[in-house]
């Protein structure tokens, strides 16, 4: 670990003033990703700004429009076991419990989940070139070992994936990210929060310098999907592994007719992967014979395999169909019985 100075922020304004004009400063909260990366010297911050004492970043509360606001410091465990979230947004609870371990979920925060870095082997290995870690050095995954890498939305600069499960559900549920920075507060639609790598893969998201995530909000409308949903995660072992492919699927069902659909993929791109056209083909269809494979084809259009990950395209197609079938039947994938329902 490099030497760094430590500052415990007493107010949000204090935290922002420490980040402003100080690109070497990094925010620390749960530490589960940042401390790990500091041990590998992938991250070498000059200053850590500890935001864990900021009360305005805590707690889950009702919003004026009937949704829920999850403070950036709320640990993953508290999201997963919150009664309101389980009643209104169970897809989110399931996605959170599909990730990491109880110990990590106790420490890892909501804001930190959004801002965690990729688990690309090369990003995590300072002995190899990586455009995300060291812009301009090249991408070792292209032409390297790329079994876990992106099949959608990648670039010639980077084929890393975003590793979160929570974010896949948040994308499907049309969450918003509330941030505060030197220019005040703004809200970012979840689909616009993470970005594709393009020629700047070092930028994971659209936060501006000095901005801090203070909360994630779930809209009231998304609670209409609480009856028919699933989070289906496929990985190399049955627990505590990142997704090769994951699917967040949720349907608003009226009788046997699909009134609305939500569909997002994890493990396949630099951000949760969602296309409204894939959801629209399901609207108005019967849950018995909706064109789930057509939705899969639309969502996966343009998929580009690399040497070791072509299997992900077929895996994703079948996982989407299975997840939509689970959602339609109202039988979400069990978190403990790992046989695929």
């Amino acid at each position: 670990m490099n030497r760094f100075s430590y500052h415990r922020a007493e107010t949000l304004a204090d935290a922002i003033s420490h980040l402003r004009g100080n690109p070497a400063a990094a925010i620390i909260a749960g530490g589960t990703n940042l401390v790990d990366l500091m041990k590998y010297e992938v991250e070498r911050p000059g200053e850590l700004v500890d935001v864990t004492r900021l009360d305005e970043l805590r707690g889950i509360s009702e919003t004026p429009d009937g949704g829920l606001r999850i403070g950036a410091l709320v640990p993953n465990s508290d999201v997963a076991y919150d009664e309101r979230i389980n009643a209104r947004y169970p897809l989110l609870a399931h996605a959170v419990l599909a990730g990491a371990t109880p110990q990590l979920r106790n420490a890892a925060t909501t804001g930190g989940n959004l801002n965690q870095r990729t688990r690309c082997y090369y990003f995590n290995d300072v002995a190899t070139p990586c455009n995300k870690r060291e812009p301009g050095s090249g991408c070792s995954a292209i032409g390297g070992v790329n079994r876990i890498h992106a099949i959608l939305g990648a670039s010639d600069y980077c084929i890393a994936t975003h590793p979160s499960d929570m974010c896949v559900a948040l994308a499907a549920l049309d969450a918003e990210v509330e941030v505060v920075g030197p220019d005040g507060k703004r809200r970012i639609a979840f689909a616009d929060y993470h970005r594709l790598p393009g020629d700047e893969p070092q930028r994971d998201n659209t936060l501006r310098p000095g901005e801090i995530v203070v909360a994630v909000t779930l809209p009231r409308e998304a609670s209409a999907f609480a009856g028919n949903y699933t989070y289906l995660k496929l990985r190399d072992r049955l627990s505590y592994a990142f997704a090769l492919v994951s699917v967040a699927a949720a349907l608003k069902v009226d009788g046997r007719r699909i009134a609305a659909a939500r569909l997002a993929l994890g493990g396949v791109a630099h951000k949760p992967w969602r296309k409204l056209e894939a959801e629209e083909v399901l609207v108005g269809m019967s849950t018995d014979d909706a064109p789930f494979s057509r939705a899969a084809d639309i969502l996966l259009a343009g998929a580009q395999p690399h040497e070791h990950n072509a299997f992900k395209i077929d895996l994703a197609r079948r996982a989407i169909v299975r997840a939509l079938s689970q959602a339609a039947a109202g039988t979400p994938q069990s978190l403990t019985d790992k046989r695929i329902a």
Partner: protein
Amino acid sequence: MSQTQPGSPGIQIQITINGEPRRIAVQASNTLLDLLRHDLGLTGTKKGCDHGQCGACTVLIDGRRINSCLQLAVMQDGKEITTIEGVGQASQLHPLQQAFIERDAFQCGYCTPGQICSGIALIEEGHAATRDEIRELMSGNICRCGAYPNIVDAIEDVLVQRSGVSREAAE
């Protein structure tokens, strides 16, 4: 807390470890795990992977099981830490420690302190009732000797004991 620069003599923190309040000066880059083992001599907590993957370093922070290798000591100011040294005494073991002995839930024993701290928290959390649920919620603790079936047995024993007690209390 005011800012400290690299190379400073350390930052004073106040923490309670196994019920005993302590004032300690720590470097910003010290992890809680290294503080416990190197500075305080509490070597029951083990360093396995040092990257949050194996669970050998699991301790309870304000009652929650957490990987101490990924926590900076300086951020624990004001917290209550329980390590394996604080869960029971040689003359009076914690029920889960006793169950680990009865069920032969270890071989080399290196992962055991983390397994027991994690298992104690699992029991308190109340989210596991079946063996599948115990397995899933113990996924953060790896045992390279492969004592898993016996570890699940031990935790299940204590869960059953606990539910028996609560049934009697309810009657």
